């Protein structure tokens, strides 16, 4: 009797999942290690953190009292004048203080000076607290905005009214400061107090000379001008970050125990042998991990609230108080984050065959999770649209905004929705991985293959070796590129060193991995022949893609993907000027040819071939393009997120060409053509401008240019497609002998 029709019904029933969850929770909560993470850690961590916070606040207050102000003016004559006025003002204030001190104290009596408003408004800074400097007139506002100057003073003199009774030169001072910046506002008060003192003293003297009673307004006026609100570093931002990190620690142990632990104990195979779907098992495990993570969040929030209230630090961090509604909102976000992170952790640990392996997977993830969290502490970082979909950062920033009462509904909704979507996707991935056949029976794909030298040469890198090479390559590049930065060197030398770094990182490093793994270089790096037509298509693509890359660059900026600050912009402008003076062949060799060949050698060569064993062609194109885009965000000593979209777009086209051709060589040509054309446009900018080809960095291109580029791109894609159609004659392909 063959009974295909008698298949059992679906086992995804709520009652059963609840019973499974209860068993998982019983098992987890009986484990002392879980209880330690859940209860003891918060009890220890928050009192310790409150001590550190108190110390930090004390230190900040002390620093603010002793810090000298830097005040900028436009010219040397203004510096001398302001210096004289401040010294004079300080002397007047000191005299008033001395006079007030010598007067017998009398409650309710108001001193003469105070009545005139001469007394300093709480600023007891030393006379040498202000350092005056001369700065370019156009830079004053920017310098104050970036807090490199605490205050800028712009002095203008008005001609005296010849018809009037007075014969002195009126002076108008524009005091440029930054709102909400303690140091800037202190500097403002410091200067205001002294100028006011000089004003009143001078006025009184003049009026006395003229026999006019005091009370007329001063002629010397000053006007504070704000250049925007500062967003100083707030310790309150640390609160959500700490809560999130503690929630992470709560989810980690149960996730490992319920997945990798099952396999290590040998209970997984008995579970898989039972008539229950893996999805039901996974949902129960997810629910158990989530419950523990939520409990952890709850205990942490409670412990934190009690610590904040009892240590009085809460009133310093949150002047408006910690209301129950505020705490409920934070708890809601913690629950959402717990749902997201539990799914991520479960997906990762489902991959692992043992506790040890699971820990090896999770430690990098924990570190990765901390990095965006710390990034979110940066002063001035707003929850923009791109950051609203950035995992972890979005929740930390949203929690901060809730605590500060600055929530923007649209970004808040996007942050919540994207986190929920990530959680659902991660559960889906985990259910596919959990109990996977390969994990149950085979040893393939293990990290052990990284250290095994195959007995015979192979055609492709092992997946583990590929991932290891990728993981080490990025930090290597970042460190070496930073070391190679030396502003004192000549440009051609700097370019040569950068090229050497590129060759070492993207060429030598993967070749070392490939050699250790006995991977044939020709197949392992896809240095295969390709049809003639693909080279023609590649060159056409190389010269026609830049308008789209430019528009994507602008789109990224519009969406808030902006990393460059003014200093970087100035440095880039200087570099562009230097590039214009460089011989074209040197420019093209170092900045177009070498990066193009080396990046293709790694991204579409080694990485592409290594991933082929694990994922399908279109997915490899996407993954390598995203990594390629991610790599281009990294610049020495800064981040350039605006390069992500154009680089990823270029990576997609390069990946597709490589996929179609089965070779990395046409992509090298495409990449070099693209780089070369852009560099030539930069170098010949003035020439192009003179001939009506004005390409502004922040302006859209003419529609005609875009239409032309789209036409050429379409023709180029068709040529590549046609040249690599199934059954094309590979013998006719060209092999460059690389």
């Amino acid at each position, binding site marked *: *009797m*063959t*009974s*295909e029709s*008698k*298949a*059992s019904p679906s*086992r995804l029933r709520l009652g*059963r999942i609840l*019973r499974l969850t209860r*068993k998982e929770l*019983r*098992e*987890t909560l*009986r*484990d002392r290690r879980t209880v330690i993470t859940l209860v003891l850690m918060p009890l220890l961590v928050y009192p310790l953190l409150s001590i550190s916070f108190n110390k930090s606040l004390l230190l900040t207050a002390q620093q603010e009292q002793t810090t000298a102000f830097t005040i900028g003016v436009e010219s040397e004559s203004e510096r001398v004048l302001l210096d004289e006025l401040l010294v004079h003002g300080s002397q007047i204030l000191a005299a008033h203080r001395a006079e007030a001190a010598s007067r017998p104290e009398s409650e309710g009596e108001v001193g003469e000076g105070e009545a005139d408003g001469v007394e300093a408004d709480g600023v007891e800074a030393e006379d040498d607290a202000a350092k005056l400097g001369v700065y370019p007139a156009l830079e004053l506002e920017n310098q104050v905005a970036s807090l490199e100057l605490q205050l800028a003073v712009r002095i203008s003199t008005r001609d005296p009214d010849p018809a009037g009774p007075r014969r002195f030169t009126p002076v108008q001072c524009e005091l440029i400061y930054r709102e909400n910046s303690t140091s800037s506002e202190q500097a403002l008060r410091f200067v205001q107090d002294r100028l006011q003192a000089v004003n009143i003293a001078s006025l009184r003297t003049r009026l006395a000379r003229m026999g006019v009673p005091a009370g007329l307004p001063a002629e010397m006026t000053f006007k504070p001008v704000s250049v925007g609100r500062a967003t100083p570093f707030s310790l309150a931002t640390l609160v959500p970050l700490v809560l999130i990190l503690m929630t992470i620690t709560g989810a980690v142990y149960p996730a490992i125990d319920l997945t990798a632990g099952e396999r290590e*104990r*040998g*209970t997984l*195979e*008995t*579970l*898989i*042998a*039972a*008539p*229950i779907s893996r999805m039901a098992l996974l949902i129960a495990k997810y629910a158990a991990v989530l419950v523990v993570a939520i409990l952890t969040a709850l205990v942490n929030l409670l412990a934190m609230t009690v610590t904040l209230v009892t240590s009085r630090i809460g009133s310093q961090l949150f002047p408006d108080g910690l209301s129950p509604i505020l705490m409920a909102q934070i708890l809601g976000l913690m629950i959402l984050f717990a749902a997201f992170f539990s799914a991520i952790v479960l997906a990762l640990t489902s991959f692992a065959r043992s506790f040890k392996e699971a820990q090896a997977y999770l430690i990098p993830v924990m570190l990765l999770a901390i990095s965006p969290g710390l990034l979110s502490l940066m002063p001035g970082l707003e929850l923009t649209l791109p950051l609203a979909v950035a995992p972890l950062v979005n929740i930390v920033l949203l929690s901060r905004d809730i605590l500060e009462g600055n929530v923007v509904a649209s970004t808040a909704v996007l942050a919540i929705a994207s986190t929920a979507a990530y959680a659902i996707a991660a559960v889906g991935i985990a259910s596919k991985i959990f109990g996977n*056949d390969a994990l*149950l*029976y*085979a040893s*393939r794909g293990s990290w052990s293959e990284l250290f095994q030298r195959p007995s015979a040469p*192979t*055609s*492709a890198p*092992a997946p583990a070796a590929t991932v290891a090479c990728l993981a080490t390559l990025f930090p290597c590049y970042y460190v070496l590129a930073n070391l190679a930065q030396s502003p004192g060197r000549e440009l051609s030398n700097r370019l040569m060193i950068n090229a050497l770094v590129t060759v070492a990182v993207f060429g030598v490093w993967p070749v070392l991995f490939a050699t250790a793994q006995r991977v044939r270089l020709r197949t392992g790096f896809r240095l295969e022949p390709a049809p003639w037509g693909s080279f023609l298509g590649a060159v056409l693509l190389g010269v026609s893609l830049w308008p789209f890359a430019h528009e994507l660059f602008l789109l990224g900026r519009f969406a808030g993907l902006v990393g460059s600050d003014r200093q970087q912009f100035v440095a880039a402008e200087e570099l562009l000027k230097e590039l214009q003076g460089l011989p074209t062949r040197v420019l093209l060799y170092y900045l177009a040819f070498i990066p193009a060949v080396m990046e293709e050698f790694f991204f579409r060569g080694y990485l592409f071939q290594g991933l082929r*064993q694990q994922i399908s062609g279109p997915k490899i194109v996407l993954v390598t393009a995203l990594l390629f885009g991610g790599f281009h965000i990294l610049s020495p000593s800064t981040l350039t997120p605006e390069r992500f979209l154009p680089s990823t777009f270029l990576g997609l086209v390069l990946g597709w060409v490589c996929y179609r051709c089965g070779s990395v060589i046409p992509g090298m040509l495409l990449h070099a053509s693209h780089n070369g054309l852009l560099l030539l446009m930069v170098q010949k900018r003035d020439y192009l401008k003179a001939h009506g080809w004005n390409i502004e960095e922040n302006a859209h291109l003419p529609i005609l240019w875009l239409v032309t580029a789209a036409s050429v791109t379409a023709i180029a894609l068709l040529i590549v497609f046609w040249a690599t159609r199934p059954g094309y004659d590979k013998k006719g392909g060209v092999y460059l002998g690389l």
Partner: protein
Amino acid sequence: MISVVGLTKHFAAGTRKIVAVDGLSFHVGAGEVYGLLGPNGAGKTTTLWMIMGVLPPTSGYAEVDGYRSSSAPDAVKERLGLVSASAGVYPWLTPRETLLFFADLYNVPPREALASVEGISRTLGLTGFLDQRCATLSTGQKQRVNLARALVHNPQIMLLDEPTRGLDVLGSKVIFDYVRHLRDLGKAVIVCTHRLDEAQRLCNRFGLLHRGRLVHEGTLAELQQRTGCETLTDMFLEFIDTQSPAGETGS
């Protein structure tokens, strides 16, 4: 009760193809103990996982009580009990909680599950530690919990994968008694082991696996008559000798 027809399984390891099971066919009836024998890596465990419907075969099929493993895996799993040497226990659960949990997984109604746990506990001597956490049990006690777990849903077919691996004489005796008990209950049993001497004492019929292929099958008497060898070990060694190219065997 169990029919295996042309069962084949290939694994991909990088660019290589590994043939784990190659065209396997045999039948096991009620009250029969079938020994699926062979050295490590012969394909015994892979065969069991395909019979259970956990691993999809590359070709061929297995049927359990009329249900095809590949198309009705849950129905097949409900009828099977698995005992594996590598199976562990949940350290923070008691044997009673473990058995009731598995009874629930196998859709046994709660009242029946309680009765079943009591009955099996008496048969396998679990009553003294039924409410003690498994982490505190000895190796032998854990082994008995695992035997009980495989029986809690009263399956008609039992699959035993290397059941005596790592056990001492007393532990192995518990297994032998267990298999006899199953046979007396009229269950169809497949025992996978590389211990040919043990298998000879336990099983009615044998299938000798080598590199995924069934090289001999029959009762002990049939195999002795066919090969001229007295023991299963001798039969297997002689087969290896005839299959290996000159120079590969010997010292």
